């Protein structure tokens, strides 16, 4: 059975009532691939792509609050550099027009480009269950294991909240220039008070943060020597595997390289 609510309240009620018996469908850029391959055989589908308030972006208190259906195409125009660059690296325009940030979180792919940007930005997300209200949690607490998250079967991801006043940057290494899955991607962000966020994709069972590297960066002024130290530290904090895209050793080394590049190009000398 396909459900197609037009208002969020209705979607939440259906999810709360049907729980694990209904799969939420956002942009469909992951699930429709699984459907086409015969790997997804849902009992019930909750199509969120027609909810009227899905695309809303609000700005308040130097934060952007993004509704669940905000697409990658919308994010490419958001003045949050890491998130906009991550969104622009996803697929081609056809995918960016359909895929959503909340869907990227819900899929919880280790290579989720948008998730990596959100982790570096210390973003928060809102999970809502009809009748029980919303809970806010850091995106950092959302990923539990390979494609396992804090999202309960009765809940929907309703909003993502990102700081609007952080400096941030993002970079991906892939096999092609476009429409490719990250071999490694990295994001770095810094708050106006100087607090850093560092995150990597495709180097663990889910998008990873690098807390020890962040602590190093938070403790002293940024110098080329500190950047070298941070690049070395970051390589000890990731847990990549070897697969058909790249070896674990290459991925680990690239985490250091990407971090050094991002810090040098966007944060040293107070640029950006």
């Amino acid at each position, binding site marked *: 059975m*396909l459900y197609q609510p037009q208002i969020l309240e209705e979607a939440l009620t259906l999810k709360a009532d049907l729980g694990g018996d209904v799969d939420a469908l956002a942009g*469909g850029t992951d699930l*429709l691939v699984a459907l086409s391959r*015969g790997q997804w055989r849902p009992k019930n589908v909750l199509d969120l792509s027609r909810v009227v308030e899905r695309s809303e972006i609000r700005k308040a208190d130097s934060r952007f609050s993004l509704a669940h259906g905000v697409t990658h195409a919308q994010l490419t125009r958001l003045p949050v550099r890491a998130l906009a660059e991550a969104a622009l690296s996803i697929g081609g*325009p056809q*995918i960016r*027009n359909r895929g959503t940030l909340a869907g990227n979180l819900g899929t919880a792919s280790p290579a989720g480009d948008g998730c990596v940007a959100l982790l570096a930005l210390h973003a928060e997300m809102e999970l809502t269950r009809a009748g029980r209200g919303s809970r806010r949690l850091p995106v950092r607490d959302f990923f539990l294991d390979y494609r396992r998250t804090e999202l309960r079967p009765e809940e929907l991801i309703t909003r993502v909240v990102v700081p609007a006043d952080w400096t941030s940057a993002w970079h991906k290494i892939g096999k092609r220039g476009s429409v490719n899955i990250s071999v490694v991607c990295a994001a770095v962000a810094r708050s106006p008070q100087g607090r850093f966020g560092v995150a990597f994709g495709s180097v663990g069972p889910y998008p990873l943060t690098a807390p020890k590297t962040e602590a190093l960066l938070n403790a002293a002024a940024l110098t080329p020597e500190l950047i070298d130290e941070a690049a070395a530290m970051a390589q000890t904090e990731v847990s990549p595997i070897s697969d058909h895209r790249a070896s674990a050793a290459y991925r680990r080394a690239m985490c250091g390289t990407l971090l050094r590049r991002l810090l040098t190009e966007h944060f040293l000398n107070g640029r950006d």
Partner: protein
Amino acid sequence: MPENVSEHGGAASPADDSIWHWRCKVNGQIIERDLPASTTLLHALRDHCSLTGTKGACEEGECGSCTVLLDGAPVNSCLVLAAQTQDCQVTTIEAMASGRKLHILQDKFLAAGAAQCGYCTPGLIMAAAALLKQHPDPTPDEFLQGMEGNICRCTGYKAISEAIRQAAQEWPTPPEVP
């Protein structure tokens, strides 16, 4: 062929797939069809509307051959359920020419020899139409970002890029994309 894949390459309907009353404006005409709810827009167009100009190739969003415009924005029709286009406007390659008069992009593709097997061409033209509508004079970055969702395995892209660039020079003189 695995048993769960139909001869069209799309997913076979599960036994309990409910029927969806699909209503959509396709190329300016309101179309109503009863379809299995799991039908993709690609198969709704090809198998239920006889609009076979839209091509299915990878059917997983990698190649762009199935590109159509959904409310003016390019999408992979293989990754959208027909049901998700309820009461929307869909534009396919069939709407590009007016009668016997080809769209400027079609003309330029022909003139530049921008097709070999031609299978990717309808998707490329739809993506290019969306690109030029948004950026009538695209920068190199806008050009790449607009066309990066489509692949061609024959031509090497030089003639395709040339055709789109030439169409851009005469844009927006041609009739608006419906």
